[in-house]
């Protein structure tokens, strides 16, 4: 078989100019270092801000502190100069900036602002005073930068910082450790915050206000919501009510996500439905004083039945 480019060209599906470009790429006449350079920049910013932050954290004497603060401040000012120079005016739609590393400068400046803020706090003994506000203020700074300069990474940071402020940690790192169940009564917070974020996402869509932020909002929102629901199911005294709440809300979401082909959210709600349904089934068997041996049949048969059901509508989720 010919190479794809040649095949397309011979069948007249691409023109001369396109063929030449594609051949140049295939034969490595031209090679893009787009991702490599970006990775370097990203790593560099991470190491640099991390190092500066930690450096600041160590005690380095009276003058050292001031110099460090001024240093960070100066870096912020330089960064802001670049941002102001290249930024486009605010717009409720997606904004693309021509400067290739604009997003990275934005990220660097935002992180430096947070570093400086934390530094000032520690230095002037404001930690106790501001303890409950630190994460809120970080979230507010991230949120402002995210909306003003249209950046989804900053929005995601704002959401995680806000969740941290109300006591929740949304991080795959915790899930990897297997500690994704919420302790104490945080599940109510998690459910409320999750639901609000999901609604905010939906409102952004309808009001046409940064429509493309919807996914970030709802991804975090639904995760928080379902994790809250499931933790409550196993933890709280009102387990049955929470199980029904999960079953019904996740059921509705399943339907909504299916119709709108939001398959990631479809998976989230599917898993929640299955957990809630299995939980209720266990409770029912328990109530009837029945035989737990039915669960040996339950798992294979429910899964296979569900698969068959899905495949009756398989064209709905075929690859676009």
């Amino acid at each position, binding site marked *: 078989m010919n190479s794809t480019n040649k095949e397309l060209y011979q069948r007249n599906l691409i023109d001369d100019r396109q063929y030449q470009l594609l051949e140049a790429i295939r034969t490595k006449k031209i090679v893009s270092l787009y991702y490599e350079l970006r990775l*370097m920049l990203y790593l560099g910013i991470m190491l640099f801000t991390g*190092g500066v932050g930690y450096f600041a954290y160590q005690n380095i004497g009276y003058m050292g502190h001031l110099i460090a603060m001024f240093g960070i401040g100066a870096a912020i000012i330089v960064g802001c100069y670049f941002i102001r120079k290249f930024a486009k005016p605010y717009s409720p739609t997606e904004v693309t900036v021509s400067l290739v590393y604009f997003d990275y400068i934005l990220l660097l400046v935002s992180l430096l602002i947070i*570093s400086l803020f934390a530094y000032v706090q520690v230095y002037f003994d404001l930690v106790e005073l501001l303890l409950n506000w630190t994460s809120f203020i970080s979230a507010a700074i991230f949120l402002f930068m995210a909306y003003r300069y249209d950046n989804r990474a900053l929005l995601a940071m704002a959401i995680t910082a806000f969740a941290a402020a109300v006591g929740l940690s949304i991080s795959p790192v915790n899930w990897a450790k297997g500690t994704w169940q919420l302790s104490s009564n945080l599940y109510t917070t998690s459910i409320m915050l999750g639901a609000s974020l999901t609604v905010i996402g939906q409102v952004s869509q309808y009001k046409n206000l940064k429509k493309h932020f919807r996914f970030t909002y709802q991804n975090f929102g639904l995760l928080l919501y379902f994790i809250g629901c499931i933790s409550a199911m196993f933890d709280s005294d009102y387990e049955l009510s929470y199980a029904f709440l999960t079953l019904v809300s996740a059921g509705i979401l399943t339907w909504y996500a299916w119709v709108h082909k939001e398959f990631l959210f479809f998976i989230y709600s599917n898993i929640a439905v299955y957990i809630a349904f299995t939980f209720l089934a266990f409770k029912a068997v328990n109530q009837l004083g029945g035989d737990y041996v039915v669960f040996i049949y339950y798992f294979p048969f429910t899964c296979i039945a569900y698969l068959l059901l899905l495949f009756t509508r398989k064209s709905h989720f075929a690859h676009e």
Partner: protein
Amino acid sequence: MNKSIIAYNIPELEKKNVLSEAQNLFKSNVLNEEQWGKIQVEFATNLYTPSFTMRVLLFIVSLIGMSTIMGPVGLIVGDIGDTGYRFLSFLLGISLLLFTEKKLIKDKSHYKSGVTEAGIYAGLSFIAFALLGSQSHSLLVYPCVGFLLAAFAAIRYLNLTALVLTIGFFGWMLFQLLSNIGGVAQALMPFIFMSAFGLIYWGSKKVRVKLSAEFLNDQFIILQTISLVLFYLAGNYFVVRELSIKMLGLTLSERQDIPFAFVFYGLTALVPIGTIYWGIKHKSTLLIRVALLTIALSIITFKYYFSLGMPVLTVTVAGAILIIVALISFNYLKQVRNGYTREKLLNNKWSSPDIMAIVASQTLGGNTNNGTTSEELQFGGGKFGGAGAGGNW
């Protein structure tokens, strides 16, 4: 190439490959809508692949369904003893594979639909259980069985996870074999590993050219990347030293170094430099990426043994150097030089702004907690992200 080795229909795979390449070109604004429409008609394939997230769901559901099926079957047949269960497991495994191949792949044209993967993994796991049972064997038996089963899935079903496992089992097999032989074989282990994976890399390049099957691109990229990284690791001073002590029982007194330490110091330093030189010279992004990764690993290795005791300064300076080098390269490559450009030519199918946003929020310091100062977490977060981002190509 004998075409019946692969369970799928090759012309369909080729069409599928053209389609996905063309879709990428369309998304990168190289093709216009009309062209993309025509290509979709000309290369229409009957292979059924759902969208990515649905594949995940289908995989989870069918894996639970298929792997728990032993329960009901076991209940029905009753107590048949260890050998009986192993035989049953073997039968189940074979039937799952046959079902996947005849029903899903041949009849329904499933291709990487999630269900096929679940069928292959569940089937092969049942077979592995049947072969190994619950008693213990010589340590060489496990990697051999694993290697054969994984290689089968990697070749016949073009499964990428199985390919990674195949390479892993191969490495384990080689390690076990050499340490069983002991003596000179054990002493030469790093060099035997280096030659083995060097040969695999070199051989896979030849085979790739010979087959010229573009639908196997992902397979070759993975095979070559892993072999190169293992080639480097086999000569890395840290790996050689630690593995000699932990796995081969080498004892070192204080101030004593491993035999031929200078060779491994040399390899640790020279392999990344050689890789980046070859990569830039031959314009191979694969080599350049592996080189960037190995350079980072080598720096960490040297810092580990010759630390100046100022890790924070090192991190900050390293970050600053990275930023400066990246910015200089950005500026230098404003125009195309020697065929290199900083511009994005085509979209990378692995990148998406949404995923980037979530990765960034998890690896950078947004995840601050009450009570702890954010600098501390930023630092920790940075280190964690560094490890993750390395494999992010």
